[in-house]
């Protein structure tokens, strides 16, 4: 019941080759940089986990985080809405060389597919992408005189997320717009691993202010002064 994990190495030790891994964050806000770097360390030391499918809004930026995972060669596929960014060379090079697969999903559909997975909804209808190439091959149907596309849930084996305040039973809060995809991914993965800036005992978060209830979190590791992806990218850091 105590979900506390002593260190980053142990937190990511169970992710196998070929896993689908959701990674929280939008741009540089809410990205679990330390968890990702621990995963890269493991890959460099052992060659595992390889051939990962990554789910994130973006496809990495600069030389750290997801971009560093891609460059390290551990990512086979990216499911995202917006692979473009200010420094997206890591993804771009692999993509244009045909070395990485891309599943492009409209941002709201991506969010809703992840939420649907967490909520036990295998499929839903959305007006988004109807009539566009991103709807090709998907069932379409009319409701109340308007056309909609049917989308499937999107599940993952693991979610790596970043919270602000956490407790040992897995309750989480998020800092400002760093919330983004994190609470949704926590619901949609078989195992959710959260890094938090502050860890406390149960009761340290007002029950009315919990954003992610602990039932959605399996492993929690404290990273007291987390790095901010945007800051690292601007400093030109390469991991």
């Amino acid at each position, binding site marked *: *019941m105590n979900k506390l994990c002593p260190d980053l190495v142990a937190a990511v030790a169970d992710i196998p080759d070929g896993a689908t891994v959701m990674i929280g964050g939008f741009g540089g806000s809410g990205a679990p940089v330390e968890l990702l770097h621990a995963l890269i360390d493991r890959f460099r030391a052992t060659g595992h986990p390889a051939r990962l499918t990554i789910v994130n809004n973006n496809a990495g930026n600069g030389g750290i985080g997801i971009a560093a995972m891609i460059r390290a060669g551990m990512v086979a596929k990216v499911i995202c809405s917006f692979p473009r960014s200010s420094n997206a060379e890591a993804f771009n090079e692999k993509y244009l060389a045909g070395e990485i697969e891309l599943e492009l999903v409209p941002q709201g559909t991506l969010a809703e597919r992840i*939420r649907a*997975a*967490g*909520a*036990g*909804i295998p499929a839903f209808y959305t007006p988004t992408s109807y009539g566009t190439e991103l709807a090709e091959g998907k069932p379409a149907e009319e409701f109340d005189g308007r056309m909609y596309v049917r989308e499937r849930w999107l599940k993952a084996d693991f979610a790596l997320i970043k919270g602000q305040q956490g*407790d*040992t*039973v897995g*309750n989480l809060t998020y800092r400002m717009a760093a919330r983004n995809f994190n609470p949704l991914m926590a*619901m949609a993965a078989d195992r959710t691993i959260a890094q938090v800036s502050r860890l406390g*005992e*149960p*009761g340290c*978060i007002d*029950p*009315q202010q*919990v954003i992610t*209830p*602990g*039932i*959605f979190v399996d492993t929690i590791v404290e990273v007291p002064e987390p790095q901010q992806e945007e800051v690292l990218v601007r400093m030109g850091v390469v991991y």
Partner: protein
Amino acid sequence: MSGFNIMEDKLSNAQIAWRAAQDIGDGSYVNLGIGFPEMIARFQPEGRNVTYHTENGVLGFGKAPAEGDEDWDLINAGKKAITLKPGASFFHHADSFAMVRGGHLDLAVLGAYQVAQNGDLANWRVGSKSVPAVGGAMDLVHGAKRVAVVTDHVTRDGAPKLVESCTFPLTGLGCVTRVYSSLAVVDIVDGKFVLREKLPQIPMDALQAVTGARLHSEGQVGDLIVPADI
């Protein structure tokens, strides 16, 4: 019949609840249905940490408050006053049923009018005369990883509640995995009732006689032994 009287010698509801509580593992997230199933929380074995979920948006609640200390904004799905344990959280109804439907609960325990050998459950409506009410039961039976039933083995009239197929309106198809009855513990495996435990005093043929479908056994049938002081 070795003098066993199923109306007198059967387990009480409290004893059934005690037995069900023994199977709830440390660290489980559990939803207990309104009424009889709620009683299970009282018998949670010491040293096990169990987190209770209620459909109206509370995770991690504890016992009922003392009379007079109720806060009616802090209730469970049965509209009874509850208290919070440290680490509790509140959320809205859609998030609450995301927990249910999304398979995040380890166990849901419900009452039953009838359970069929294929796992079908009927527990929401007996006839068509009264006002129907379904609540969260239909969601719970398709959401939790395990769905258990606590029930008397027979109705007040002595009719079997474990049946070949349900005659009352269904709550869910093929959803129940284990039944804790007043006489036995029965699993549902591949469309069959598999007897795991029975009261030691009741002969096998007497148990079969009050069960509406064939009871199978796989290896040893255990003794269903419950502390007498419950």
